[in-house]
């Protein structure tokens, strides 16, 4: 098969993963939130309500696509795509196992962050083009918070890059193979040097993926639905699909950087390499579960508090931590 054909297949696979992830996550979200809230979630369509999401997707596809008269038509139509495409791009560098990955980029970490940082442009476009004041506020909030948190997100993971000596996500995972004392895995989360790093990463990635307690840009109790207020049918579907996909990506990044990616130290190497993608997905969905848990429990932070936390706390702390861990790594080796 030609190189172009293989690339096309890989893109299709990523698209399939993204759509499948959307369907799985909506069901998971409903069930997790349902049980957190002492109710059941969907139970009627299919076995334990599993087909409910399929029905919802069908509903979204067949719904009337309303375009309000006052919107900026081109931007309004383009915005979901501008949100969707970077989200799809971000799958390219994720290492699902030592062989399963779309590309093997040496700058994989930077590439993924770059892809994620394109999303606010789309949200701002959606907010502006909707000609709705709530949308505009939502778009502005999205832009403000995501720009503010890209910096600490990237700074927070620099110590890992310094230790590993590479920004290739695959290499970072390989550096976490093996165990300490035959019990503790050599994951970076076990290393006390990376505990502050991990905390900053969690906060910043919650903001980046627009999750409670930082779901400012679509805070339904404040600004109705934020940038998505005027969207309906599949345009709305695309916006939300990319949101779920972002959640998957930051969770996958967290797994890659701190929880050893596809590796599982207690199993023999042959089993791990066979089950790699499965282990990776299970870890990722555990991360997503924690995000949903937070979503079901926590109230929302105010926009000025988010900005303050980002600029005044997280960025200085991560800068200081980079210097400190740089010295530690230098002295250690």
């Amino acid at each position: 098969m030609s190189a172009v054909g293989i690339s096309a297949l890989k893109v299709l696979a990523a698209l399939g993963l993204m759509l499948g992830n959307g369907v799985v996550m909506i069901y998971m979200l409903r069930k997790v939130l349902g049980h957190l809230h002492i109710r059941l979630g969907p139970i009627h369509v299919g076995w334990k309500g599993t087909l409910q999401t399929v029905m919802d997707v069908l509903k979204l596809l067949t719904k009337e696509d309303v375009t309000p008269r006052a919107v900026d038509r081109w931007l309004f139509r383009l915005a979901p795509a501008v949100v969707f495409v970077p989200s799809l791009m971000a799958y390219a560098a994720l290492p699902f196992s030592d062989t399963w990955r779309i590309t093997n980029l040496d700058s994989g970490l930077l590439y993924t962050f770059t892809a994620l940082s394109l999303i606010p442009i789309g949200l701002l476009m959606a907010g502006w083009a909707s000609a709705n004041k709530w949308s505009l506020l939502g778009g502005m909030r999205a832009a403000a918070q995501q720009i503010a948190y890209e910096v600490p997100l990237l700074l927070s993971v620099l110590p890992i890059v310094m230790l590993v000596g590479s920004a290739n996500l695959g290499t970072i995972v390989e550096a976490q193979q093996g165990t300490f004392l035959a019990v503790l895995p050599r994951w970076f989360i076990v290393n006390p040097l990376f505990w502050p790093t991990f905390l900053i990463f969690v906060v910043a990635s919650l903001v980046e993926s627009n999750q409670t307690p930082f779901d400012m840009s679509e805070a339904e109790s404040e600004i109705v639905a934020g940038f998505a207020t005027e969207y309906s049918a599949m345009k709305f579907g695309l916006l939300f699909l990319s949101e779920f996909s972002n959640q998957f990506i930051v969770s996958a990044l967290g797994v890659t950087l701190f929880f050893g990616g596809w590796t599982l130290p207690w199993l023999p190497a042959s089993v791990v390499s066979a089950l790699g993608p499965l282990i990776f997905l299970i870890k990722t969905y555990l991360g997503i579960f924690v995000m949903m848990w937070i979503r079901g429990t926590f109230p929302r932070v105010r926009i000025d508090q988010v900005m303050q936390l980002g600029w005044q706390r997280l960025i200085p702390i991560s800068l200081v931590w980079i210097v400190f861990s740089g010295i530690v790594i230098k002295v250690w080796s």
Partner: protein
Amino acid sequence: MSDICEETLGVGLLCEGQHDPGTPPAGLRRAPSGVDGLTTEHLIINMGPQHPSTHGVLRMIVEVDGEEIVAAEVSVGYLHRGIEKLAEHRRYDAVGTLMDRGDYVSGMMGELAFALAAEQLMDVEVPRKAHWLRSLASELNRLASHLVWYGTFGLDTGAMGQFLYAMREREALLDILEALSGQRMMFNYIRPGGVVADMPLGVTEKIRAFLSTFDMYLDEYDQLLGGNEIFQGRVKGIGTIDRQMALAFGLTGANLRAAGVDFDIRKARPYAAYPELDFEVPLGSTGDAWDRYNVRMAEMRQSARMIAQLIDGMPEGEHTAKVPRIIRPNAGEVYASVESSRGETGIHLISDGTEHPYRMHYRGPSLYAAQALEEILPGHLIADVVMIIGSTDIMLGELDR
């Protein structure tokens, strides 16, 4: 009087010098656009009547500079049903159905206010048991109402769970109220002369079973929302209504007590069985949203305490006085007020001796809380608006009547 008039958000003009410029609601004064020579325009946003968290159909016209509010006007009337006019055409025993639909989350207190007003004009001796049943129904309903407030306050902050947890307790309460009155929300239980039915068998056990877990759950809920740092960061110091402002805007109930004014109709003008009950009136100090939250949570504990006393000490006897089928009270003019879950619900009743009230004025505490919003909103962020509305616990049903 000077001629310098500023355009207000609405149609009207606000003239300076006419009155002390510090006194009018800050929300009605339009601030000039542009800061430090930058030409920026303020955005005027219609918040409501269709908005997820304006607690019904409240509409606020807010003028924002970025996200900060510089002017706000509260516009009401989207739920106006003319209850006061309708009452002029109802017989006295049927006005309770209207009162239920005023403050529809705490209907018992509205009914009680009307019944107390009508009884002042009637030659009737309300039996002791009726007083106790009225207090019991009021306190159960107050809990149910405060739980709705707690849940929606949680929703306003973006926490979904609190609402559904509160609904679990409310469900048990509505079951009890249904056993008591036959209805879950529109009770029509308290009528002039007494209550409509005696306690049914088994309801005491139901209430005891509810109370046995309620305090534990309430502590849990308080910990879940009030113990959360994020929530505290959201509510502390916002929407401050100090003592002076609370009095000037005629606030009552928990909103007034949060400002440190010790006034509860149940203590100050005792009615029903309250003189015989042992309870405390929780007070706040600064009057911000956090104080209002704490006062309401403490009120729920007091209500649970009162319910326990009420079912333990429930007297024997008749549940209603002998009241003619068609009530024709003496002509006259009276005023009766009760402490409802949102504040002082007052009924100004004028009778001309016929079977219909001549005039019934219904004072809804939410109306006064809503107009105080115009004063306190400017200077806050849009995210704070929903928190402040949530903390004042306004109910659009009694605001628009």
